[in-house]
């Protein structure tokens, strides 16, 4: 049974929602309800093609980084995957699973994201799209790393790099993740070199400013840990300057840069600025995107601010909040210890080394 849907109006709405400069959170609820209403009509009519078309209409919103926690969008995504399965549309299913994996990973559901990426890669291989299969396989490395399987993650990246020509700028993606793994092991100079290589490659890609923004934030973090504060600041500011052109659409990415920048400022004792920056980052990710993985990191940064400013009770509350959110995501406390070591203890270690080098500490 076919339904009478105004697809033009839906497309216009989608274009409006995903336009740079429009923060989807400023659009009142009813305008979003058109999605849920259309979906329920399509489901009632068992119009599976229509469900897939509806999901496709809002592709940009799923690809962007602000709203994917909205229940209406999550339901549409789930129903579209079911529709693609029941219609046997392998290529569409592979695409939807890949997008789902990205959003699950951003939210912190890494195990589920891993399953989605693996299935997506398999489906792409079945339909002969090896490049997309490779890209989804690459994404499993991020999940493995987040789940603490660093060796597995490194193995995936080596496979991916071997299968990617040296002159393919897309290599920037696996190189960036390789830099994270290298940083995890404490080898900051190598991590820095890898990130600089990734940034160079990203700059050769069209419409890559958000990729560059992410890599610059990573670079700023490492440079900051290595004690080159002024350079780190410039990298963070360059990263943040790339977001206004996409205002409202990549809130998670923007918050990620803000979080890393606040960690640098914390190292410099600028706690008031840090608190404000963390509040802004929090507001960007918690209202609609529900990016829990970044949320607990922001809460942890707050705990450190409170600890360093002598507000111990506040610090303990925030640590409770961190453990609580991570428990909901199924993430282990061992991984948390590794994270703290990488983000905070490395800074402490390098600060002490610098002081010792200057003769301040014997």
């Amino acid at each position, binding site marked *: 049974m076919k339904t009478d849907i105004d697809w033009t109006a839906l497309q216009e709405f989608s274009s409006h929602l995903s336009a740079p400069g429009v923060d989807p959170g400023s659009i009142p*609820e009813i305008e979003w309800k058109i999605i849920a209403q259309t979906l329920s009509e399509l489901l009632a009519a068992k119009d599976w093609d229509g469900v897939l078309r509806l999901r496709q209409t809002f592709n940009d919103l799923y690809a962007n980084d602000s709203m994917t926690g909205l229940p209406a969008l999550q339901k549409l995504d789930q129903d579209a995957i079911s529709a693609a399965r029941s219609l046997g549309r392998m290529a569409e299913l592979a695409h939807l699973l890949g997008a789902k994996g990205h959003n699950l990973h951003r939210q912190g559901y890494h195990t589920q994201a891993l399953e989605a990426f693996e299935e997506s890669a398999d489906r792409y291989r079945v339909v002969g799209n090896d490049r997309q299969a490779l890209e989804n396989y690459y994404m499993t490395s991020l999940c493995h790393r987040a789940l603490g399987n660093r060796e597995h993650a490194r193995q995936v990246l080596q496979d991916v790099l071997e299968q990617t020509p040296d002159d393919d700028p897309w290599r920037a993606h696996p190189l960036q993740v390789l830099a994270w793994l290298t940083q995890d092991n404490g080898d900051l100079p190598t991590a820095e070199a890898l990130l600089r290589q990734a940034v160079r490659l990203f700059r050769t890609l069209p419409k890559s400013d958000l990729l560059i923004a992410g890599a610059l934030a990573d670079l700023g973090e490492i440079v900051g840990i290595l004690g080159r504060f002024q350079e780190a600041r410039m990298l963070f500011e360059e990263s943040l300057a790339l977001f206004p052109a996409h205002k409202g659409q990549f809130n998670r990415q923007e918050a990620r840069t803000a979080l890393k920048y606040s960690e640098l400022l914390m190292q410099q004792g600028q706690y008031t600025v840090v608190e404000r920056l963390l509040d802004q980052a929090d507001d960007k990710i918690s209202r609609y995107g529900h990016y829990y993985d970044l949320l607990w990191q922001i809460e942890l940064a707050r705990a450190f601010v409170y600890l360093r400013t002598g507000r111990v009770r506040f610090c303990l*509350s925030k640590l409770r909040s961190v453990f609580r959110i991570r428990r909901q*995501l199924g993430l282990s406390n061992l991984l948390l210890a590794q994270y703290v070591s990488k983000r905070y203890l490395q800074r402490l270690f390098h600060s002490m080394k610098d002081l010792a080098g200057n003769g301040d500490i014997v």
Partner: protein
Amino acid sequence: MTKNHETATFGTLLRVHRERSVERRLGRPLSQDRLARKLSEKTGLIFNRNNVGNWESDKAFPSVEDRRTLVSLIAILFEYSGISTFEEADRLLDAGNYRSLSDPEQEEIKHWLIKKGIPTPTAAAATSSFRSGRSMLDDVPEAGLKPENNSGGWGLKSLFHRPQAPVSLYDSECGGRPIDLSTQRLQISTSFGAYFVGLLEKPNLYLDLESQIDCPASSRQAGLAPLQRIFWHLEYARGPRILVIGGEGGMGKSTLSAKIIRCLHQEQAIDLILGDSAKSRHIDPLSKNLVHVIQGFYDPASFYDRLCSQVGLPAFSGKDAIAAIRDRLLGRRAVIVLDNLETVKKGDEILDALKTLTSRDIRAIVTTREIHGLKVLDSKSLVVQLQPIKDAASVGEFLNWHIEQHQYQHPALRNLRHDLSNHIPWLVTRTGGIPLIMQLVLSDVARSSWAAVRSLPSLFGRDLLDFLYQARWDELGRLGTAGHTAREVLRWIAREQYHGQLITSRTLTDWAVSRVLDSYLPAAISYLFEMFLVTNRDSIQGNFSIYPSLVEFIEKQAPDPAGK
């Protein structure tokens, strides 16, 4: 009966004149902020809204030497029609013990107005206000407004002689400016619906009537007006953290809570608005019909789910949810609003949870029709009961404010100003002083006469409200196709408003065109403005809404027969 306008202070008169000034483009009175900016532009000196606020509350005065400021102030009030004659201007100056306008100063003002393309004033009162054709003081109800010494007189004295120099923590305009909800709009419209969003974003939301708010006062709050006492409580670090606003439907509970939220936001005391409206109905996603459910459908778990989602947490349940939300909110400044507590099953449990969640930086506002039966109210809660407006001064002030707000949609209201005070006692007795009912009755008077409305049946409270709605509904039924169109428009607005829809002029026209009712739309809208107090908060794009009590009434009405 003499008009004792000599007793009016400079501040009082300045405020009255400013509030009568209209920014025509926006269709609203000149704000303190706008007046200050205009004054800065005209004089080249720096003024802000605090200067104007202080002048209006007689805490400060323009210097007697500073004729430039005084003349500019009057010129601006002329420009925006807040003053229409030189006699009124001199009266204002006189109230502040300033000398009257000299001839050159009058010429300067005339020259300024000619430059602006505005007709120049004369000295004669008879050619005054563009709105009422009467002078400003005639527009003010001959206040008092309880008969003094049983003489039947309604002297201006009691209106203009409010208790002298009340202590004020917040500017009286605090919360007067709409909030730009920005990225919180989706969250707030999801939780509270478009009506509440409209209250937060609407200009000229609230008229502060001291007698309406029954707020307990401690010894430290002597001299504070009730609204200021509420702000004091909310600001005081060790003060009550939960504000419960009780009152019947139509008393203005949501409006007061919106005013408080706007003020807290404006003062940067909060940056997050959280909470939920407890609903006794929901939308069937397939049929799109409203489904009514039994009272108590809403429960604490729904409330916790909503709060978890608003603070970005995954769903937790029960005590875990409360602890998770509390830890998340630590370090933030927020207000948690729970609208319609009376519809909640286990309302006491939610109040208990709110006690845990609130802190020095996190306050809660709860609205409810029923305060009796709430067992957990204690020193952490401040209970404010909204009372009917019964003292004649407040009623007069309120009705004049209503006329100001609705006069552009319902011009006949302006004609009621001149003898309003004569009818206030009857109006209070008949309506019980419930603001919404008074507004409806006043609109009836504007459409007919005082004599006609005196035949209202002996009903009170909600019954009277329903009777008034029903009479209007029936009248629309007798007004042919335009009347039936008006009914359909109301049904449509009620439905869309519940869905949270922004009802703009364009969506309204599109809807009418789709039903081939567009030729009747202007007349229908006119009926609705006059009879049902439909408000349009955006004179350019359109932003129509109706009172929740009217939505409830419309939902009970059977559909019109087809073909009407």
